[in-house]
């Protein structure tokens, strides 16, 4: 899909739409409705989530899903409050997101609900519980 087709497909579900060139779309979605976006993408044979990036913005945590819509790239941002960063898993729709969500859980402390395998992935074995190294407030050695 081209950038214009992606925006047309997701009409009404996404906000703050920004297009860079004709192959990159940046958009935000609410925590409640972002799964509808994913379902619409699935119906259009979008199968590949390239990665998920988590960003600590100070006041909130942004979770950015990067979808490969061939040839267009959709970067879908979902903002979560910092006191309770919880989001539903997307592994039922995009199974490849499993490892990215584990990364999100341990590095930024985002609670991914209904995740099939919420173990730790990258952190050392003796890393203390409840310390999320990519959060702004964590003091680096």
């Amino acid at each position, binding site marked *: 899909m081209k950038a214009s087709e992606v925006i047309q497909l997701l009409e009404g579900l996404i906000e703050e739409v920004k297009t860079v060139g004709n192959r990159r779309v940046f958009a935000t979605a609410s925590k409640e409705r972002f799964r509808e976006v994913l379902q619409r993408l699935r119906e259009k044979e979008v199968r590949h989530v390239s990665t998920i990036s988590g960003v600590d913005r100070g006041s909130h945590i942004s979770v950015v899903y990067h979808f490969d819509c061939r040839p267009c790239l959709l970067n879908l941002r979902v903002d979560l409050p910092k006191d309770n960063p919880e989001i539903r898993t997307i592994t039922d729709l995009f199974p490849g997101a499993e490892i990215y969500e584990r990364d999100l859980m341990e590095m930024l402390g985002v609670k991914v609900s209904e995740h099939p395998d919420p173990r730790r992935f990258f*952190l*050392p*074995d*003796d*890393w203390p519980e409840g310390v999320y*190294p*990519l959060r702004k407030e*964590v003091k*680096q*050695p």
Partner: protein
Amino acid sequence: MGIANFFRRKSPWLLHFDSGGCNGCSIEVVAALTPRFDVERFGMLAKGSPRHADILVVTGPVTRQCLPRLKRIYEQMPEPKIVVAVGSCAITNGAFDGCYNVVGPLDKHLPVRAYVPGCPPRPEAIIHGLMAVLEELK
């Protein structure tokens, strides 16, 4: 110079350990081992087991997960043992300094006898570092 040291200088065996880097230095170490640069002409041979090794070649910054493994490998090596730090990361943490899981530099934890700087160092430089520690065995 004892007779054991005389022969050890003729065939020091290496153990290469990557303690968590980007693999750039590891590739240069492999280049130093293979025929183009050919560290084997000095009798050096890469070994798979620390129990057979005389020289421990460490690349990469020491990470929190790797540190106990690195220490155990060092303890398993027979005396006399020599540690060579290869690359900026092993020497000073390099680009990974201040990272949440980096506990280096290497000489904080193990007695390092030679430092080979560079990011990554040239294979010639690695060979030069290894030859320099062999001089100490005299």
